């Protein structure tokens, strides 16, 4: 993916340079005659070994000093044949005959050149993998959460607010009013917040839950000239029934403490905390005014990579959720070299992070042990208390390991951790430390390799279901199904997968996928030239992101869940700010509403302003960035990385030119056109949108020409007059579907599809078509296949 980072500098590298000499210029004028060539005397493989391998290597890997680039690409056999016939072997005057060229093209296309061949070659077995970082965090949250009630808030819209009349030091003397407040942004000035409450002294408590949209580091900011404390993701302390701050009861640590005012001056408290997306966390905000001149209070947050904003009503719920343990330890990034996170490699840094995270987790659990291990104060006998701790430990390990703790391991561990002379809490800590750093937890399949055992087989299925749909541990229902032998057939597994799909964790994982697929997780700065695009500020960018999220959620979680709808939809979601900026019909209020547009002007994600702006320069559109994104991500086509870096320097061109003219000039060489013949027409079809994704009919004071001829992967030439033509093509394209299936597959199972058989993607595509391109069904299908895959199928076509 082209990094959006480049956009900041208004310069980009790549996609403009020379391509490997073998790649055929797709739009070459000399069209190859379709007459059937004679049959070659030698086999393609023999020709390759005799005439090609000396420069290109045995498997097209290249030869240093001769031709050191790998022969990878996506040209058709026809294209390759023509190219070889005209130019190869390069070191001989006599070029390959047509029949020889065809034979060798067929051979290398199937053996190593085509994407399919490469897929077969990359990995053909299920690798033993560790938990990815996301899986580690999600698993710990659910593991600890499984002890005691787990409650997530469902509704949204605000917090429960209780308004009190105070009397001197008695901050909550009398409850006057209870209602729901949507956001915490109040300025009472020198007045009273409600009838029957005096203006000079009062107190308000807000309670409920906070819903966090995505995983990452959040900041919170509380601003008030009065007294306020913010508690987030904490239990009520033992002995505290209401967190009333005027009582002497023991209290949990607050996240932000601004309880004591200072000369009536407005103060700010800022704190940060790491949260897992898609979950809800208990929140309480306590506030009081005592004789200060004015009263006001504002609660804001800063999403990972977002601007500061008032926490919106949609992020609040009046329901109170339970505490979730979130691992805050930073991990080294997972390997994404294959386009998806996978736990196929480990490092010393990773091992240290795991150890640190395990220590952090054990620490937190021990601090809440009486709750988690159910040791009420009424259990006073130390022997009974220790027994409860031991039971907790054994259960903890069984759940973490996804299989029962063997009696020998249990005995061994009990002996080593609950030894005499150390206090039982330290023993618990040791036990937890062992469990969370154990390979049985970190490598989910390592302890389940014995497939002969029916229970193990079912537990493995349960474990895989948890990881596939939630990136987490199996829940109690799955474990129960495994134990009772009702997790065996694909129908039984599908029933479970469909149940799990309804859980917020599945939504969170799928959201994570779309963020990855649509380059929303790159964390770049979308800032544009403020002179050229006034009003395109960080808040607007955050709105755009939210708008795209809402659109994707709307499509994906509707019953039809139609993949094609993502491309073809004639609506998007706008709030008041976006509607005003993009000149749409007016939208009232802060919330997002569905706004339809003229079908020929826009189409689904292709013209979503977030993506159009992401793939643009600081001051102008970028047909190249847009074209590359569409080629690879949307149409699932392969592009080689550009062999040399060329910067787009706007001031090198005739200042009266349009962007299309500049790009055409810059990429005009035949060598560039090998890829740009594909990239440019796709990018040009979106030229009616400026750098912030606004519709335009003029570029640089000239009419926009958005029409182009695009040659599809199968050689068909398609005229694209507007974005909808492109969307219609993509929605019907098999490559586009296959690309989507492959990426969803990798994101779901964190393994290479080829490990599941060389035809897995084709089979899934057939199912996908049958199900009217239903994304939810596809996800379930991928999950079921992943969960039941037993013996790795060896690829037959491995070179």
């Amino acid at each position, binding site marked *: 993916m082209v990094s959006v980072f480049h956009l900041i500098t208004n310069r980009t590298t790549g996609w403009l340079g020379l391509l490997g000499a073998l790649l055929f210029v797709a739009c070459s004028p000399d069209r190859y005659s379709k007459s059937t060539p004679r049959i070659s005397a030698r086999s393609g493989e023999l020709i390759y070994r005799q005439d090609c391998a000396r420069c290109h290597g045995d498997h097209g890997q290249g030869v240093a000093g001769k031709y050191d680039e790998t022969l990878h690409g996506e040209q058709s056999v026809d294209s390759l044949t023509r190219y070889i016939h005209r130019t190869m072997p390069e070191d001989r005057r006599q070029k390959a005959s047509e029949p020889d060229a065809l034979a060798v093209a067929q051979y290398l296309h199937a053996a190593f050149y085509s994407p399919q061949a490469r897929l077969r070659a990359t990995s053909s*077995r299920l*690798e*033993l993998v560790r938990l990815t970082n996301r899986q580690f965090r999600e698993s710990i949250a659910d593991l600890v959460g499984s002890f005691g009630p787990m409650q997530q808030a469902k509704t949204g819209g605000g917090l429960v607010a209780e308004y009190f009349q105070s009397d*001197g030091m008695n901050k909550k003397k009398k409850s006057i009013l209870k209602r729901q407040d949507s956001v915490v942004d109040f300025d009472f000035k020198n007045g009273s917040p409600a009838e029957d409450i005096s203006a000079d002294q009062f107190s308000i408590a807000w309670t409920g839950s906070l819903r966090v949209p995505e995983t990452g580091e959040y900041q919170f900011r509380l601003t008030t000239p*009065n*007294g306020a404390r913010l508690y987030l993701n904490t239990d009520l302390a033992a002995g505290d029934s209401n967190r009333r701050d005027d009582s*002497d009861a*023991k209290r949990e*640590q*607050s*996240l*932000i*403490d*601004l309880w*004591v*005012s*200072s*000369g*009536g001056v407005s*103060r700010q*408290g*800022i*704190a940060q*905390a*790491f949260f897992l997306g898609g979950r809800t966390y208990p929140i309480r905000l306590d506030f*009081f*005014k*005592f*004789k200060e001149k004015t009263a006001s209070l504002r609660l804001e947050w800063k999403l990972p990579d977002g601007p500061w904003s008032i926490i919106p009503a949609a992020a609040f719920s009046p329901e109170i959720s339970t505490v979730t343990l979130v691992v*805050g*330890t*930073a991990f080294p990034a997972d390997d994404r070299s294959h386009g998806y996170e996978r736990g*196929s*490699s*480990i490092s*010393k840094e990773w*091992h*240290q*992070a795991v*150890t*640190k995270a395990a*220590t*952090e987790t054990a*620490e937190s659990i021990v*601090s809440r042990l009486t709750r988690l291990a159910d040791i009420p104060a009424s259990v006073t006998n130390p022997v009974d208390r220790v027994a409860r701790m031991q039971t907790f430990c054994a259960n903890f390990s069984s759940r973490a390991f996804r299989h029962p703790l063997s009696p020998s*391991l249990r005995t061994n*561990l009990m002996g*080593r951790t609950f030894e005499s002379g150390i206090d039982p809490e*330290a023993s618990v*800590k*040791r036990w937890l*430390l*062992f469990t969370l*750093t*154990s390979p*049985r937890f*970190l*490598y989910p399949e*390592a302890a389940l*390799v014995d497939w002969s055992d029916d229970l193990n087989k079912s537990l493995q299925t349960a474990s895989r279901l948890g990881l596939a749909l939630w990136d987490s541990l199996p829940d109690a229902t799955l474990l129960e199904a495994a134990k009772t032998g009702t997790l065996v057939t694909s129908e039984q597994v599908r029933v479970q997968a469909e149940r799990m799909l309804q859980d917020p964790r599945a939504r969170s994982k799928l959201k994570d996928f779309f963020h990855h697929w649509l380059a929303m997780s790159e964390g770049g700065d979308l800032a544009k030239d403020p002179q050229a695009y006034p009003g395109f500020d960080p808040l607007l960018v955050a709105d755009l992101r939210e708008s795209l999220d809402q659109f994707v959620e709307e499509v994906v979680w509707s019953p039809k869940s139609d993949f094609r709808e993502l491309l073809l939809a004639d609506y998007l979601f706008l709030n008041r700010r976006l509607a005003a900026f993009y000149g749409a019909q007016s939208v009232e209020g802060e919330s997002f509403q569905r706004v339809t547009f003229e079908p020929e002007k826009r189409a689904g994600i292709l013209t979503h302003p977030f993506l159009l702006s992401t793939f643009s320069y600081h001051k102008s559109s970028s047909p190249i960035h847009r074209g590359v994104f569409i080629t690879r991500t949307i149409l699932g086509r392969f592009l080689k990385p550009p062999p040399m870096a060329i910067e787009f320097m706007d001031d090198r061109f005739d200042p009266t030119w349009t962007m299309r003219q500049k790009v055409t000039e810059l990429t005009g060489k035949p060598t560039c056109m090998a890829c740009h013949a594909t990239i440019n027409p796709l990018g040009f079809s979106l030229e009616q949108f400026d750098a912030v994704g606004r519709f335009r009919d003029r570029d640089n004071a000239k009419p926009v020409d958005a029409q182009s001829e695009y040659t599809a992967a199968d050689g068909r030439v398609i005229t694209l007059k507007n974005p909808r033509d492109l969307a219609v093509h993509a929605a019907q394209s098999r490559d586009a579907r296959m690309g989507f299936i492959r990426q969803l597959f990798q994101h779901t199972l964190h393994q290479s599809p080829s490990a599941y058989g060389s035809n897995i993607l084709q089979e899934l595509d057939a199912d996908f078509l049958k199900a009217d391109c239903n994304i939810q069904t596809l996800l379930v299908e991928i999950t079921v296949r992943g969960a039941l895959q037993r013996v790795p199928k060896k690829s037959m076509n491995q070179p």
Partner: protein
Amino acid sequence: MNLTTRRRFLGDAGLSAALLPFVTGLSSLQARSTPVKQRIVFIFTPNGIVPPDFWPEETGAKFTLKRILEPLAPFQEKTLILQGLSNRVRGDGDGHMRGMSCLLTGIELFPGNIQGGSDTPAGWASGPSIDQEVAQFLQSNSQTRTRFGSIELGVAVPNKADPWTRWTYAGPNQPIAPISDPYAVFERLYGQVKDRENLSSILDSLRQDLRRLSGKLSREDKVLLEQHATFVRAMEGDLAEVNRQKLHQPAPRLEAGVGTDNESMPKASALQIELLVNAFSNDLCRVASLQYTSSVGQARMRWLGIDEGHHSLSHDPDLNTGSQEKLVKINRWFCEQVASLASRLAATPEPGGTGSMLDHTTLLWTNELGKGNSHSHDNIPFVLVGGGLGFNMGQSLKLSGTPHNRLWLSIAHAFGHQTKTFGKPSLCEAGPLSLS
């Protein structure tokens, strides 16, 4: 205020990243040929004292300790009693609030939303306290820098944050909460040691299990677990290396199950003293504060046969001899705690130096009031025990009506911090007290 969350703290003090720095810090401290160490402990007890049973009659080197101060007899020649210092800071807040929050800061409170029994509501102090000023000064110099700089301990401090319960401040509006739970103090000081012990204890089992699982895996999959095992072995090696570099004093073994409630005060006090001495001998900090309850503290010293709360008793008139007798007992108990700390330090040889640790440590015991039933800010008790600051110890001085800011200047200067003023500048006009 940016509160450090528990998780943040763990992150800072976490295992892997901080494993070596901690050790390196220690070894460098041991190897260092530093100027002689100076330390100070500020000790707070509340509600004023009983003047006739506290202040010596005499001035100068020859004096007799009255009943309350009798426990200091073994250290009399190392004791300096300063009568006549006043907390002259005025402004918002009631007498207790200002007594407490202006004591170490010597500066006014901000107007705020905390209302006392009288006067105007107030907020936090508007400047740093002298302990933090000295600690920051020591931390700014690599010769005197320690891992923590200062530690703030409490004994039965109420679980509230207001100007009555806070006396040390990192700066304006930045009160520092004392830690009343000795186990939390231990965690702060030696958490890493414990974490390492816990970790060391499981690594062996972990390697065994890795080996057992590896045996079941295919050749390709085995590679990953074998690599994992090498990381575990490397960590074992690192930990062994760390454990070879011993602390000067091993972490203390604390009696289990001591609470933070009123009844636990005697035991909690003993544990905090133990931890403090230990932290000093390992040179984890050179400045400390030890706060017994809070201003308006209501300790009920049942272990002395006193059922009434301390603050309530302190309001009783002088003529109520029963109450006065109880107040004498209470204050004497507090003095015993000071003496106990002094005797622990006196019994410990100065690490890498000469004499005892008490020779290099000054204990400064004070109070938010001079007298409870008058809420007087005059004649606030300041009793110094120990050495190292170059003061002429073994004296009883009567300074009459001197702003206490001048004492803080003397202390800053004794540490080499030549500041012209501390706290409210107008109260520093006469400069530091001449105590040497």
